[in-house]
């Protein structure tokens, strides 16, 4: 084992956008919307707060993706590899949750918002996890 440059409180890290903290903010917004809606099931709460939280979460995820897309010296090969698999895993989890909501005959307005929130959730998490791995990897894949 070595204690290479990557282990220092990283010079490379300083150049990278704060993808994980911003992703956490989006998570808090998305989870806030889900808690709001779930705490009224099977009632009919006003959808405005949930729509506001969802829009804010979606904007935060989009801004995060935009900031990350501008990074050039980054292990994109590893990022996409992790992103694909975590997206697959979270698609299964989101699918299960959507199945439960549909099975429970949740009113259509709340159901669409919950599905949209889960979609934002499923876009946010793979980016955070893939970034967390790729930030410590070399920009180019090692030669076979």
């Amino acid at each position: 084992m070595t204690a290479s440059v990557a282990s220092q409180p990283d010079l490379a890290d300083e150049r990278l956008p704060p993808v994980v903290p911003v992703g956490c903010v989006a998570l808090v917004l998305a989870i806030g919307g889900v808690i709001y809606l779930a705490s009224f099931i099977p009632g009919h709460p006003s959808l405005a707060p949930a729509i506001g939280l969802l829009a804010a979460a979606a904007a935060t995820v989009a801004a995060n993706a935009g900031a990350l897309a501008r990074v050039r010296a980054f292990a994109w090969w590893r990022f996409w590899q992790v992103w694909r698999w975590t997206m697959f895993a979270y698609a299964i989890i989101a699918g299960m949750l959507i199945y439960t909501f549909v099975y429970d005959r949740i009113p259509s307005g709340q159901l669409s918002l919950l599905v949209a929130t889960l979609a934002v959730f499923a876009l946010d998490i793979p980016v955070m996890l893939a970034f967390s791995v790729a930030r410590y990897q070399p920009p180019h894949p090692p030669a076979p």
Partner: protein
Amino acid sequence: MSVATSAASRLELEPQPARPRPPASIVPLAGLPVVGVVLACLVAAIAGNWLWALDFFHVVGGALWTSLDLFIGLVVGPCVIARLSIPARAEFTARFMPAMALIMPTLVTMTLASGFQLARHLGLLLSSDPHHAWIVASFFLVGVMAVIAIGVLEPANLAVLFELRKPEPDGALIARLMRRFVYTAGITGLMQIGTLIIMTRLAST
């Protein structure tokens, strides 16, 4: 023979600490069928409205999730990993983290999906229910734990797994990420005590 040469030959003769063998895959593939069976049973329990099965998944999943969090954060981290030598820590990590990458998400999915369905069946989600405020409080706790788990714990777990697969893993980086993993497991474990208080209160009133 000079002192330096004799020291060098001694080093050659002494057994060197072996680098931990990197895991063959990021998650243990042999565990995937077990996860598949658990998730299939969970779907069947929800679809079949089997109250006992929902209760089973919720209680078993919640108990294992809470116990693991507390055990890792308060026992394994400070009392075991912290006292191991660096090679032993690396060896432990190489075997421990892949299993955790599979076990924890499965337990969390089991607990939350069955718990939500159980609350719905028992009418605890209704805002008119006297216990509704406790259920909403548990939503908040789970929400905070989810952010910690997804934002700190799981990224550290995955980063360690990938670091271990490098030809020359960075020991200091692995130690830093493991510390983060263990401490956040402890924090979520302590928050789980709040969930335990809420759940036992719901079950006893």
